[in-house]
């Protein structure tokens, strides 16, 4: 290939790299600016620790994490499902419905994907299937230098069954971006 074409291809590649990465920023900014704020329960709240590196990394397992069903073909591998949340005036979402299709203009909707399906048997010997879901927000980076009071509040609330812990997210057309951890109506970080 001639040097001129190689150089042109290189500039093209650089442009694509910038367009794709900038696209991520624009897309995320759009979700943050136009999306609805939802506080969703998550299933694996672990203790938070202050760290020297000034940031920490948390795995999030949102609720629902699995779907149980009897009809083997109802949910299949890599299928998209939509979780429609019922939220109160404080945006806390404690109940949900699982839909197989998207509802247009519903801002309380988050898209999840069926990651695996496997057969199981319930206690009453009923044969069922379990589908594991994967969500667009599974990792959350939080500031390791948060105040001691907030850290204590969060860590005490994990052991307290009367307290509800949420992950706050911006949701837009099924997409979601994690924003903060919440204990009831107190933003932890």
């Amino acid at each position: 290939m001639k040097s001129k074409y190689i150089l042109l291809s290189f500039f093209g590649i650089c442009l694509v790299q910038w367009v794709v990465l900038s696209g991520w920023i624009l897309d995320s900014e759009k979700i943050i600016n136009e999306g609805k704020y939802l506080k969703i329960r998550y299933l694996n709240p672990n203790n938070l620790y202050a760290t020297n590196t000034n940031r920490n990394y948390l795995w999030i397992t949102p609720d629902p994490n699995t779907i149980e069903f009897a009809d083997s073909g109802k949910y299949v591998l890599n299928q998209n499902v939509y979780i429609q949340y019922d939220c109160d005036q404080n945006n806390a979402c404690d109940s949900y419905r699982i839909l197989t299709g998207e509802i247009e203009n519903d801002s309380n909707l988050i898209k999840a994907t069926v990651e695996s399906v496997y057969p199981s048997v319930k206690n009453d010997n009923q044969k069922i299937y379990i589908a594991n879901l994967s969500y667009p927000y599974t990792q959350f980076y939080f500031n390791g230098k948060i105040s001691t009071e907030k850290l204590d509040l969060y860590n005490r609330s994990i052991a307290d069954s009367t307290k509800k812990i949420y992950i706050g997210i911006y949701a837009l057309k099924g997409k979601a971006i994690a924003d903060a951890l919440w204990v009831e109506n107190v933003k932890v970080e």
Partner: protein
Amino acid sequence: MNIDLKELTHAGILDSTTADAIEAFYVSKKQKDSGSRFFQIISILGIVLVCLGLILIIGYNWFSIPKWGKVTLGFLPLLSAQLVGAFTLIKNKTNRVWSAISATAILAGVAIAMSLLSTIYNLDATYSELLKWGLLLCIPVVLVFDSGIASLIGWMGIGIYITTGTLFQNESKIVFTLIFVAALLYIYAKHLLENKIDLSWAWHHIAIPTVLILFTFALGPYTCQKIMLLHLLILFFVFSSLPSINSMAGRWWISLYNKIGFGGTYILAFVFSFKSFWTQRSMHLSENCFTSTGNYITTLFSIVFIFTVLYLIKSKSWNLARAFDMRYLIILLGLLIIVGHLFPAVSSILANGILLVSSAYFIKEGIDSENIVKLNLGIVILVLWVMFRFFSTDIPSIWKGIIFIVLGLLCFSLNYLLFKKKKS
């Protein structure tokens, strides 16, 4: 081709002055090459260390930096690497060290930008998705700079992409993997055909088969692994039949590859010789194996296999006298997988037969050609076969002992006979 200068001088073909000049030329060339390679490795190590240091310093103060400051910082390494890349293409295109450094720096720049953006926005950071975008943005860079080290990083990325998340029934992931593999295979094949193989490209001979094997195994569910074994055998068959591979027999990596391939094929033959392998319920081939994603991949593999066989017949590179040439063994094992799907018990018997006949073949070949390696290879196959059958059959200990003594004596006597034959 290795040339012995002293021999040529002695035979009067070369005079001593020319021989000295040739020797001095190659010594100087070797020193130059080794210096350039050393500089290349040190430079890349330097880039990695500088990047890691920057990441740690920025990471320590991360939450004190405003969002747009973080975004700018995320893009800075990529911008710098792209500028270095442009400089290399304009001013230093023929310099391999600059090309390798530029390509590796851009790859690192993309990786840093992506990981920082995913941290800033808590992005949909499923590892597999990030890797996909990373590979899409980086593989064209490898093609432009024609860099062996960057290509090797690309192959490692594909390997991680394949093993992260599920590939089974994930059409888009399979298509992306095939695109990545095809792009990097193109540049590898180009170097192979032009015989421009330095150390970084030589490592591809190990990296590529490893990634392709991972790919074939990740394609199907556990219950379809027998089809994946068929893919594996076809891959080895096609790779070892490539004319460019055969023309390079004697190179270290061809030798290593053939040894691993030989060992792997015989391990498979031993696995096939167990009845439980064919009767195990979880390993039964189900209809799903043929109707799922693996279906067209199997068809693709089969077409490539048929074309390779036709090519070998046309080029007359089959040697019917060498009945246990690796290629025949691979075809036999492939057929066993298909026969085993219909008659599970028959395949186990056939696999045992293949092992015994190949053991006898190696022993006979070893004695006829006075090759001690071949002779002992045959004995090892026989001993292993006997040991494995002891585990799967209920024979009284006394008989096991007698058979082992007979085998031991056979081993000593055959080696002694060959030694004596060689001496005479």
